């Protein structure tokens, strides 16, 4: 077959590697119809006043105006920003430090790695419930410390509107850093031993080797980790539902929960679609530069 194609005068671009193209038709259809089609449908209907059932009566930007005037949406965005920024920084830093420690050829490394990775095997709902109990002032950490004698000890982040988002952050870090650590560890293991030897010969202190040599070499791992963490941040929902269900009041609301509540509880699909379109825009802002760097920029260099 290849011989025939090569033999013809002008090989048709579209018919090259036909079998592979036929085989990928289902995947292409899925991507186009379900992902792109669904997205376009959602964006289209976000400009309508659909209530319980979708209907095409356009109201322009009304849904978006209402969205950006809703205090709950603004709180959600603010929470997402705080949660996102801090969980990005902390999970990268903690994950990398743990991985670097693990990389010192310690004993029982397997055991430690398993322990660190275990929380990741739990769902967000379970994580949320566990931390809801731990942070409950009547049963959790506060009551244990108080029973040890420090009776004025106060630690109830989930019941304080000002710091509730940090209570959620703690649970998220506990769950997520294990995975970051494993990714980082894989990256560290990919670094050639000779680099370490060279650094040692030159007498460069270890921390400096990490910061100036090793981390720049791990660029690919860092970008992958970043994308995994970032997409986890944008879609955070179940953790909040399990820990606080958005409370106290609306202090720990997040955008994904706004979408769900308005689509299904308030029976206002238009409003929910508008909110989810805004979430899509957020994700696009994160993904597009990354894709450009990884694929567009990469090809030029190669």
């Amino acid at each position: 077959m290849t011989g025939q194609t090569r033999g013809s005068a002008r090989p048709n671009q579209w018919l090259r590697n036909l079998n592979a193209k036929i085989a990928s038709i289902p995947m292409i259809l899925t991507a186009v119809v379900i992902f792109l089609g669904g997205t376009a449908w959602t964006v289209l209907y976000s400009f309508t006043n659909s209530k319980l059932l979708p209907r095409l009566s356009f109201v322009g930007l009304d849904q978006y105006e209402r969205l950006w005037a809703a205090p709950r949406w603004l709180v959600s965005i603010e929470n997402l920003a705080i949660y996102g920024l801090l969980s990005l920084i902390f999970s990268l830093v903690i994950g990398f430090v743990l991985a670097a420690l693990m990389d010192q050829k310690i004993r029982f490394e397997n055991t430690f790695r398993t322990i660190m990775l275990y929380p990741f095997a739990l769902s967000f709902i379970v994580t949320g419930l566990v931390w809801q109990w731990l942070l409950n002032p009547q049963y959790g950490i506060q009551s244990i410390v108080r029973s040890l004698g420090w009776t004025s000890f106060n630690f109830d982040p989930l019941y304080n509107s000002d710091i509730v988002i940090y209570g959620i952050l703690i649970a998220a870090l506990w769950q997520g850093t294990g995975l970051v650590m494993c990714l980082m560890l894989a990256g560290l293991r990919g670094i050639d031993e000779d680099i370490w030897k060279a650094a040692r010969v030159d007498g460069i202190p270890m921390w400096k080797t990490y910061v100036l040599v090793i981390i720049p070499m791990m660029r690919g791992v860092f970008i992958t980790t970043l994308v995994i963490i970032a997409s986890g941040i944008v879609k955070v929902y179940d953790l909040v539902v399990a820990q606080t269900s958005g409370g106290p009041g609306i202090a720990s609301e997040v955008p994904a929960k706004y979408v769900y509540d308005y689509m299904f509880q308030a029976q206002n699909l238009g409003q929910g679609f508008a909110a989810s379109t805004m979430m899509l825009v957020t994700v696009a802002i994160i993904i597009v530069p990354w894709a450009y760097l990884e694929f567009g920029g990469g090809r030029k260099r190669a």
Partner: protein
Amino acid sequence: MKLRSLAAALAATVVLPFGAANAVDLEVTHWWTSGGEAAAVAELAKAFDATGNKWVDGAIAGSGGTARPIMISRITGGDPMAATQFNHGRQAEELVQSGLMRDLTDVATRENWKEIVKPASLLESCTIEGKIYCAPVNIHSWQWLWLSNAAFKQAGVPVPKNWDEFVAAAPALEKAGIVPLAVGGQPWQAAGAFDVLMVAIAGKDTFEKVFAQKDEEVAAGPDIAKVFKAADDARGMAKGSNVQDWNQATNLVITGKAGGQIMGDWAQGEFQLAGQKAGVDYTCLPGLGVNEVISTGGDAFYFPLLEDEEKSKAQEQLASTLLKPETQVAFNLKKGSLPVRGDVDLAAANDCMKKGLDILAKGNVIKGTDQLLSADSQKQKEDLFSEFFANPSMTPEDAQKRFAEIIAAAD
């Protein structure tokens, strides 16, 4: 995955009836899962099973906010149950308009629902474009203040007779280590408590102007300002009730850890289940003891359109069973709600229910907010009041401004 297994379970229930003639399984979904509610729904199941059919219980935990989306997506997604609970009013409006629900007018005319259902507003809420689409099963009123007699005894103050006395007694309760007012964290509880304060303090006319006519000037006016002032008091009194579900909040009152709770009459079922006696262990004040008016919202069963004829017939049987006098009495006694027909004998009713029946007979009734407002406006109200109750730095004036905006935008 879940849907598929549900579908499989449903398919299994479809196959069965061909073997056993006449006995039809009907899956009925509802969100009655607390102790008192479950006991009440068992009465309905018993009554329906007695007709030779089988009630397949589809309880969905987590109150209406969680259950309704599941029910609606099953109906719109082409996997309808045979009957489902909604609060009658506007929750199922669009489902009916798009032809997914079954018209019950035949059953209703045959059994003369227009005559027996009292007050008439209940059946009106089931009627869309002249056709009847739901069978009301009970009247639930929101306007109750439940008080723990033990808590007030412990604090050394007499049990209040109205809202003002209750507010005045709050410091004494706090001193005794009792939370004066239990409010659970679920958003609908805060919003509901506000609606109750509104009828009690601003009166029936203002309530109707705001919620029925959506008069935004009244909503921004001095009468409602007074209501927000009272809500501010309530917010201060509710500090420290760190519970989520309404029945956990009721439990605080039952155990005397909280002084009182503003909650609908469904709370009564919990008191009953805990073996408490109205007037002895707890006190109830309809209309917060200020303005004895009750709303006549409630629960109703809606029947999705089914293709299976056997099942459609059984749906009719279920609808008529729900309104039978015996079912009404048995169900409502357990549930703590009032029957939808005025001609049944509720001799076994306790003090609180009798108070409710009295008010009902006098005709001091209003429509519930679920009947007046769309789910969208209700949700916005919930967002506002859950924030207001949790955030002491939000002033009543700011909250009122936002409230007026919601009313102005309501349809």
